[in-house]
């Protein structure tokens, strides 16, 4: 199938060209636009590698949240754009040589991978029925390597604590400095009223379908976060103060329930995060549902940034 080959070579070449432009283009804004397109093409590459779960994650993060984060940061840094001088030519040549060497070494590694690739796919497939799930990636995330997933959620919360701790003392517990429209136009308000109900539905669908088909808690949570940010940016809802108790509760409910289910494993099964036979699917669904909510709130607050005001503006 030569058409497939033409398509894939074109895709790879385009991805590389965009990466080059992201790095060398002079205007920061253009670099960010290239980076967003880079995420889009990366999602297509993941589809070609038959990793649709990864493609969904890349599309959700690259499509909505990264763009919002980077454009916001670039707008704040606009005054000092293009400041700072590039290192001299010898330095750049040396860096270029080093990077070429690293790329070449990795390329040789790719080329000399063993012909019979080591794989855990048969084991993942063989035990899939026991988990009650149909999606092997979800089984890895929530059954075989559930501990990793738990720690990943803790990392998200730690990152949020890190972001918050960068606020000056006088505004601790205050309102994040997420920039919203000064005067949202009627068309934006329309968008912010129309899209979130659909987005919430798709977020729930992502988490629900994730048990059997590609999708899952993280992809669903990312959609929820994007919808929340849209509502805040159009000033339909105020940006909440981070000391708000219900908000803090939402942040931790997912991980806490996940840990509780894990501890239950000591009693009902024989290990931490082990599910009692026959109950694994409902337990995983409960954990995923609450995690979707917590991930949504955490990601939204991560993009909203550290507190900048003591009270509502």
């Amino acid at each position, binding site marked *: 199938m030569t*058409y497939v080959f033409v398509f894939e070579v074109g895709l790879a070449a385009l991805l590389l060209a965009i990466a080059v432009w992201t790095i060398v283009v002079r205007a920061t804004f253009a670099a960010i636009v290239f980076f967003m*397109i880079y995420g*889009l093409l990366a999602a297509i590459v993941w589809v070609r590698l038959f990793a649709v779960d990864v493609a969904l994650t890349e599309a959700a993060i690259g499509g909505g949240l990264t763009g919002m984060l980077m454009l916001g940061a670039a707008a704040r840094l606009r005054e000092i754009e293009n400041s700072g001088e590039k290192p001299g030519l010898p330095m750049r040549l040396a860096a270029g040589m080093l990077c070429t060497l690293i790329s070449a070494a990795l390329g040789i590694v790719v080329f000399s991978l063993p012909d019979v690739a080591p794989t855990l796919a048969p084991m993942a497939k063989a035990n899939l029925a026991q988990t009650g799930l149909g999606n092997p990636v979800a089984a890895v995330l929530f059954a075989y390597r559930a501990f990793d997933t738990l720690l990943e959620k803790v990392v998200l919360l730690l990152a949020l604590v890190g972001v918050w701790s960068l606020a000056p003392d006088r505004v601790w517990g205050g309102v994040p400095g997420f920039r919203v429209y000064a005067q949202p136009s009627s068309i934006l308000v329309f968008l912010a009223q129309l899209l979130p109900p659909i987005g919430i539905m798709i977020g729930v669908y992502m988490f629900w379908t994730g048990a059997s088909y590609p999708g899952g808690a993280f992809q669903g949570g990312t959609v929820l976060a994007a919808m929340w940010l849209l509502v805040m940016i159009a000033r339909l809802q105020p940006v909440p103060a981070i000391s708000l108790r219900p908000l803090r509760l939402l942040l931790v409910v997912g991980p806490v329930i996940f840990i509780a289910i894990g501890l239950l494993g000591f009693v009902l099964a024989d290990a931490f995060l082990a599910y009692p036979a026959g109950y694994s699917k409902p337990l995983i669904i409960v954990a995923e549902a609450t995690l979707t909510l917590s991930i949504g709130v955490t990601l939204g607050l991560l993009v909203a940034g550290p507190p900048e005001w003591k009270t509502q503006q």
Partner: protein
Amino acid sequence: MTMANFLFGAAAFVLAMVALGLFSVLRGPRDADRMLSAQLIGSGGVAVLLLLAVVTEMPSIVDVALMLALLAPFAAVAFLRDASSSQIKSPDATDHA
């Protein structure tokens, strides 16, 4: 030519159009033009994904396209927030002065 080949050919063609669209991101000249190019390229990516979903008979790829389509307006909304806040603040400042 089989149907699969035709659809892959169409996907490659749309991808080539996306590549051409990249030049308008480079050229600009204004940030608004760059944003428009990104929007157009996003539609191209959605079209490529839909073609791939049908040709490889993996319906879950449509979900990836759905995700991209749903989140398509977000970058532009963020961009126009930054464009409008700087635009609206400056007349404000002159009022106070």
